[in-house]
């Protein structure tokens, strides 16, 4: 998928652990892991809102669109 989740980078900048963020956002650490590893197929606005609030950032800081790599 050409949408890249840069949650790790933002978490490192804010020095916040996965468990801490999961607790603040109100999702399970397992679901946060799904989000971090790019396995998520969709993100609810409410979840994005809470993540941005917890990390004090913009959605664009977490989500990035990249041109998909073409197979040979």
């Amino acid at each position, binding site marked *: 998928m050409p949408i890249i989740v840069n949650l790790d980078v933002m978490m490192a900048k804010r020095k916040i652990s996965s468990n801490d963020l999961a607790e603040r956002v109100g*999702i399970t650490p397992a*679901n*946060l892991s*799904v*989000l971090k590893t790019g*396995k*998520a*197929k*969709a*993100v*609810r606005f409410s*979840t994005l809102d809470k993540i941005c609030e917890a990390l004090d950032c913009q959605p664009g800081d977490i989500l990035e669109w990249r041109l998909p790599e073409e197979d040979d």
Partner: protein
Amino acid sequence: MWSKTRSLALSRILVTAFSAMIFMMTFFVPFFAEWYEGASLGNGLIKGSVKVPTIVILYISEAFAVWALAELHILLHNISKDNVFVSRNVKSLRSISWACIFAGAAFCVLALWRYLFFLAAVAAVMIGLIMRVLKNVFEQAVEIKSENDFTI
């Protein structure tokens, strides 16, 4: 009181009973064919004895029935474990659909001796088609469930 668990248990009992019946049928196919040879009055495209074709086609369709029943067992086992919308169930439904269609094709061959078997062929193919549509619905449901599971 009737419940989901009891309904599932009844389905499992029926499938097991039908499996036992199919197993028993293996020993009676030649006797049935002999009886049918004497009792049948119909005709078909090919004239002559219907005994050997009946034995061969019944054994072939029995193999398809065993295949379909094995898949039904897997399907019911998965449902009892609350794994309903999983790709393995889609595979089972696809297999059952093909088993019915192949059995229908086998009965079409037998219909060359007795036109009456076209009815059985049409019924088997019809069930196969219904299972195929059900498989398509399940395939879509598996996709929706996966999207739902991975929506954070």
